[in-house]
Every structure is written in C-alpha cells, then in structure tokens.
C-alpha cells in the first residue's frame, strides 16, 4: 500500500528553520480523521466484523438463538434500514453540509472583512461553534427551536431531523469558515499587491484573483469535513431522530433484543458508514497530494 503522510509515512523533521518557506505546502487543516480512514485497507472492517461475529457465538453457545438466526433477522431488516435509516444519515449530512458551507463561506469572508467589528464578530462565532461539542449544539437546537411554526395561519410542523440538520450545520459552518479564511490567507500578499497596482478594487481582487486560486486548496479540507460530518450523523439518534442507529435499535427490540443481534446490526451500520466514507477519504488524500504537487 502507498504510504499515507502522517499515518505510515516517515515523520517529518522538526527542523522548520532549515527548510525554505514554501507557501504551496500550506495545508489548511490537519486531516487526521481522513488520513486515518484512508490508511485502512478496504477489508479492515470485514475483519473486525468477522472476529466480532465469531466471539459472541462462542460466548453464547448455550443460547437458543444462534448467530445464523441473528444474520437472518438482519437480512430481513436490511432494506428497511437502508431506505429509512441510512438514507436519512446521507440526507442529513448533505443538507447540513450545504447549509454549513454557504454559511461558513460567508463567515470566512467576514473574518477577513475590512471592518473591525465584523471581523471580530465573525472570529468569535467561528471559535464558539468550532470549539463546542457537537452533541451540545444538537441539543440546544432541538430544545430551543420551536417544533412548529405559524406561517400565515398555516401551522407547519418542523420534523426533528430538520433540527438535526440545523444543529449539525453549526459546527460545519465554523470549520468551513476557518478553511475559507485559511485558504484566502495562504495566497501570497504579493498577489493582492499586483492586483492593486492594476487598479482592481478590493472586491474584484477577492472574487476574480484570490478566490479562484483558493478553490483547489479548499476542496480537500472541505471533503474532510464532509466525512467527519457524515460520521457524526448517528449523534442524531440520541435525540430520537429516526436514522440508521435509531432504527437499528428499534429493529433489534422487535426481534426480542437477543444479544447476538448486536454485532450483525451495528456491524452492518459500521460497514455502511465505512463504505460511504472510505472512497471520500481516499479521494481527499489523492486530491490533496495532487494539488500540493501541482500548485
């Protein structure tokens, strides 16, 4: 397998002083999570699953409910878990990412505003949501937001999963804000000066010259945050939002809560998340390397 920097590649030396500064080597965020996922061989979760599946079979040898029956139960529930469960995880992650990216881009631009109060406020919001536990933000949104709104006499009920989307988009927004700010500031100031001397306005410089150079740099960290967000969607199950984990628990309950069910059901959830995030992680690392070399 190819070495993944930071995971199984040789550690970089700490002798930054000896190395010439290279603006193109700038990495807006450490993709520790993505690197970890990407460094796994594709069969790793199957191996874990196999070990886990054999172990309770031995431990519960006396039980009347066999492992085979447990997998049989999973097989029956699988379409339901996929369609009504994992589909929602994906939907929540896509919507939260969309909202978080739009809000985060605006917040990131506000962080480099010429107006000091705007800049300070954007920095504060970014730091606040970046450093809050995701679950706390989810709870706040769930409990603080109304469960229905009255629009011109029509009462519209807000489903819990929408609140989950909003709750998750806050930390995404804050982290994307940092990605945007970091990418803009990684463009050498000489680019600003060259554009200024050609009589470009600040707005033109930002949109025509600086940001187009940032998109490539922002893509890998953006995908990194999408993978993290997707992995965080099961937090919604703690709020009773019907997604994969919530439905898996309900399915196991209806199968009489045999302990043998745990490994097949949660193992299935693990596999789904892995299958979804693994290609994203590999692609992220691939893109990142490509851009580091090419820029």
């Amino acid at each position: 397998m190819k070495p993944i920097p930071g995971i199984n590649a040789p550690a970089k030396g700490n002798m930054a002083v000896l190395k010439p500064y290279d603006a193109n080597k700038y990495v807006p965020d450490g993709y520790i999570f993505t690197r970890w996922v990407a460094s796994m061989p594709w069969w790793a979760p199957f191996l874990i699953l196999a070990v886990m599946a054999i172990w309770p079979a031995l431990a519960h040898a006396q039980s009347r409910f066999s492992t085979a029956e447990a997998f049989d139960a999973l097989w029956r529930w699988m379409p339901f878990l996929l369609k009504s469960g994992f589909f929602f995880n994906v939907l929540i992650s896509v919507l939260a990412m969309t909202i978080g990216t739009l809000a985060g881009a605006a917040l990131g631009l506000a962080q480099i505003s010429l107006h000091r109060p705007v800049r300070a406020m954007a920095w504060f919001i970014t730091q606040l949501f970046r450093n809050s536990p995701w679950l706390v933000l989810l709870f706040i949104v769930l409990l603080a937001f109304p469960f229905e709104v009255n629009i011109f006499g029509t009462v519209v009920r807000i489903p819990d999963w929408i609140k989950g989307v909003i709750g998750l988009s806050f930390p995404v927004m804050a982290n994307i804000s940092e990605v945007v700010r970091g990418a803009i500031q990684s463009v050498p100031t000489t680019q600003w000066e060259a554009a200024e001397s050609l009589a470009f306005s600040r707005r033109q410089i930002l949109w025509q010259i600086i940001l187009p150079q940032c998109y490539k740099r922002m893509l890998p960290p953006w995908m990194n945050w999408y993978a993290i967000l997707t992995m965080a969607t099961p937090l919604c199950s703690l709020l009773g939002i019907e997604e994969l984990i919530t439905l898996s628990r309900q399915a196991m309950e209806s199968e009489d809560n045999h302990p043998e069910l745990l490994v097949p059901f949660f193992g299935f959830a693990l596999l789904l998340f892995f299958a979804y995030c693994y290609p994203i992680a590999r692609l992220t690392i691939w893109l990142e390397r490509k851009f580091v070399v090419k820029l």
Partner: protein
Amino acid sequence: MTWTSDQPIVSLKDVHKSFGSLEVLKGVSIDVMKGEVICIIGPSGSGKSTLIRCINGLNDIQSGSITVEGQEVHDPNLEMLELRKKVGMVFQQYNLFPHKTALQNVMMAPVLVLKENKQEVETRARKLLTKVRLQGKEDSYPGELSGGQQQRVAIARSLAMNPDVMLFDEVTAALDPETVKEVLVTIRELAEEGMTCILVTHEMGFARELADHIYFTDRGVIVEHGPPSTFFSKAKDLRTKEFLSQIL
C-alpha cells in the same frame, strides 16, 4: 490644479515613511519629468523599494507629499483606482496570476477595471505579447514559463492599462543571468519610446546606459544624484564611492 507636461509628472517632496519606530525614508525629494528614465540605486535596506511602492500608494507615508500628474497620491479623498490606472508597476517576483494564461493575465485589468471591449483588448494584448517577444506563449500558464518570460508577461500586463508612468521594482533581481538581458531589452525599448520609467535596480551597466538621472539612496536619504556621466565618474560622497567601488 491642472497638470501640464512641463511640470514634473512624478514629484516627491520631503517624504517621510516609517514602519513602526523604524524610519525608512527620512525626507526624500525627487522630480521626474515626462519621458525621463530614473534609476534608484543603493545598498539593501536603504528604502529603495519602499520609495517606489509609495508612488502608487502600496505603502502610505507619514509626511511630505507625492504627486503624480499634479494629483496628491496620499490625499485621503483621492480615488486610488484612478491613480493606479496611470501608474503601472512591475515586481521583483513577477506576481502573475497563476490561474490565468499569459494572455488572460494581460487582458484581465483592461476588461474588468477599464471595462473595455473584450475583442479590442485581446487584439491589444496579443500585440503587447508580441512586443515583449512572447508570441506563441499566449496560452501558457505562468507556471509553464521561465522567470524572464514571466517578467515580460508582467510588463505587458502593466502596459495593457496604458499607464503614463512605469515603476520597476528590482525586476531582474530574481532572474537567471541569461534571462536578465531579455527583460532589460524590453525595458530599453519602452524607454526609447518615451515611457516615463522609474527603476530600482542593481544593474549598473543598464543604469549608466539608459538612465537620464541616477539617485543613490542610503539609510533613507538620497545621498547623491546626477546624470550617469557625472554620477559614476565624479561621485563626491564617501558612501556613494564606497558603494560604487564594491559594485562596479
């Protein structure tokens, strides 16, 4: 006040500039007439680059005055963009826009800033690239060009704005010796066409040959100045002599 061409096109009077407590320019005065070529030379850290950057407002000044065509550069009411349309600048590190081709680099400012017709700008841009001997490189990205080629694109990019004054900030300092010449040839042609040029340079031979007037700066002041004929042979100041003896 209206400016007429018998007055200095660029005029610096007693310019003071400091970065924090570090005073970089301590009262510099220079007058440049239209069509003149001015070379500013001096040891590193003597404030040459700061001086030239003040002329198009990239650096602000603490006191004194800088006027371009009679307009005060550091007047807070001045439309800075109007000034910058008149003053072109070329940098040591080229600073081309890496995501645009050579042609797009040249076309960008006239199209987006001056709102000129795209076809007309393209015709002009191609002519300019031919003028700096880069025909055939129109669709190359800066990363695919050598330092000397990039610097000539940067010159063409500035010229596309039809400036009245060109500022050159050590434009050959980052180049390989063999590519220095191609850039100097371009600047020489420009000077011979009557463009007003202000150069910060270490190319003494070039300065001697081309400049109408040479200014020697050291520690934030102009120590000595004069036309090349007297400047190089009859330098009076000790610091100038010392510098010239090291560099010539």
